[in-house]
């Protein structure tokens, strides 16, 4: 099971004008993490745009690939802690930048990896949809 903890949500100057958008998008980011933790593909399907572009560790993953992976994922003792995010709004587009800390245990040894991510959301037909997401491990 992937445990999710949301902490220290940072605010930015760009958020002053679009704070409602920032709140809505942050709520969806949380919903995404939580849905993934419980292998809830139906929720992810509603959040992800059909043309979602997802990149992790240099690999391009489509929405279909992502949902398939979540559906077949085995429970893991990983924990993801969202450390902070900033939301920039551009009309009906919102860009979320932040870091999260991923921890787990492999072969009895604890490991820790910090990621920085960029997510892009677009307001379509009354809903915010995730259209792009990418993450890179943060070098020590």
């Amino acid at each position: 099971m992937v445990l999710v903890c949301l902490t220290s949500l940072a605010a930015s100057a760009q958020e002053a004008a679009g704070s409602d958008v920032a709140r809505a998008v942050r709520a969806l980011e949380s919903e995404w993490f939580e849905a993934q933790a419980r292998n809830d593909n139906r929720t992810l399907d509603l959040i992800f745009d059909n043309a979602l572009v997802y990149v992790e560790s240099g690999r391009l993953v489509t929405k279909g690939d992502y949902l398939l992976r979540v559906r077949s994922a085995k429970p893991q003792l990983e924990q993801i802690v969202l450390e902070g995010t900033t939301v920039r709004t551009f009309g009906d587009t919102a860009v979320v930048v932040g870091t999260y800390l991923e921890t787990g245990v492999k072969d009895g040894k604890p490991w820790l990896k910090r990621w920085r991510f960029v997510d892009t959301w677009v307001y379509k037909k009354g809903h915010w949809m995730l259209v792009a997401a990418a993450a890179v491990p943060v070098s020590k």
Partner: protein
Amino acid sequence: MEHVWGQAYVSKDPKALERILDDAFVNVDSDGKLQAKADVLAEMRTSTTLQVLTESMTVHLHGNTAIVTGVFLIKGVERGKPYAQRVRFVDTWFYKNGQWVSIAGLVTRIG
């Protein structure tokens, strides 16, 4: 615009890059470092990159927002030694005041 960006970076043309990047632009580089527009402009001035070759590129349009992803082969010389690095990128463009500007980017190494 992606090609113009690459060319501006290689030829160290700050004016071109200024036009391409929105003032609120944010980038995450391949080490996970967060960069603002000013950081990218400063990095360009000392860059060792000589060529940015596009290996693939796909554009997804969502109204006045475009998501561009693909693979670049970056070539350069550092401390007298040539290097080549393939990177995957994801850029977000926004149509604003009659032109496309980049509002976010992320680059990650391949291989």
